[in-house]
């Protein structure tokens, strides 16, 4: 996980997304503890309130839960829930900008589909 000051995204959102990615990658597996606000503040040199906001959003959205006096844990099923959340946002975040750019460059739909297939094959 890495913060980027040049990225204009607010720091608390970067914290939230960084933790989400770590949960998706099972760096923090379900039912294990995620870093505390203090640890995040220390590691990234940010105000603890900012770190707290990032962590609390994960709790509010139901991906994590608080164990009183211990810390924040990843909920069982959180990974699947996160995947669903990201799938919902996928079109908006990735697909529409891709199509927009393709249209601007007169890249046809068939061409696009072919490229996606080629890229997937190359990746395997």
């Amino acid at each position, binding site marked *: 996980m890495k913060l980027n000051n040049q990225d204009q*995204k607010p720091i608390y959102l970067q914290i939230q997304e960084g933790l989400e990615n770590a949960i998706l990658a099972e760096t923090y597996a379900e039912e294990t503890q995620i870093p505390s606000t203090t640890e995040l503040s220390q590691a*990234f040199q940010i*105000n*603890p309130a*900012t770190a707290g906001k990032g962590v609390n959003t994960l709790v509010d959205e139901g991906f994590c839960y608080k164990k009183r006096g211990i810390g924040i844990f990843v909920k069982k099923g959180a990974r699947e829930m996160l995947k669903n959340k990201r799938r919902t946002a996928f079109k908006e975040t990735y697909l529409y900008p891709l199509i927009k750019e393709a249209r601007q460059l007169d890249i046809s739909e068939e061409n696009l589909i072919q490229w996606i297939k080629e890229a997937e094959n190359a990746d395997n």
Partner: protein
Amino acid sequence: MQTINICDVSKNYRDVLALNKVNLELHAGKIYGLLGRNGAGKSTLLKIIADRIKPTSGQILYDGKTILDDTTSRQLYFSEPDKTFPELLKVKELCYYTSQFYPQFNLDDARQIIHNFGINEKKRLNQLSTGHFAIVRSIVALQTRARFIFLDEPTLGHDAVNRELFYSEVLRIYREEQNTIVLSTHLIDEISNLLEDVIFIDRGQIFLEDNLENIITSHFYLTGPSEKMDQIEKSNSVIEKKENLGFVSLMVQQSSEIHDLPDGINISRASLQDIFVAYSKKRDN
């Protein structure tokens, strides 16, 4: 001490109005950024809060009281760039004397940190470079662990490495004490990650004061071809307008996310520094 209220404070230096009816409430347990250009009134405001100078009008309330008594003044520390210490004092003597007034001062901790910055504690204050003096006074200020610590231009003269060390020291003391630390500076983007609340000051007036995230998430740039931007300019609160080669870029203030933008209009975020500059320019006009 839980709150400091600045009530209608003005300050004149002869015919110069340094502060103009400033109202502000500082709370316990937050890191504030007091941000403004040179000569904006940052130092004057801090000096008045710390009771170094008297306001021309208005008053400061410390937990509702107008007087800074002995107990309360031990809960407040003000560190300024001017050399106000006896210059023949040694670094370790400065630590010692300060610790006599501020009971939470941890001498061992302070000496260790000063050592970590590569500063010899046996040196006299007038033998230190500008950068090293700035580090010493800031470390001493933080180490008082006072409920309210005011640091005026704490990084003046620091090199990049020391600035980072200093920022982590601010956060460490804050984590340990949960006190209030007010950082006054014109290096806005550099300290923005440390802040919880932001106070923008310009020509003696506070023109924006809010939680950092509220400010960052409520200002955007909208950019597009001139003809498409007219409507947007009319229907939004515009802070700044830039025109360039047939394109218009607007900084708008909008508390909710902007949806349904017409095709060809880009939205991007503004940094704290961008926002500060935009407001300052708007006030210039």
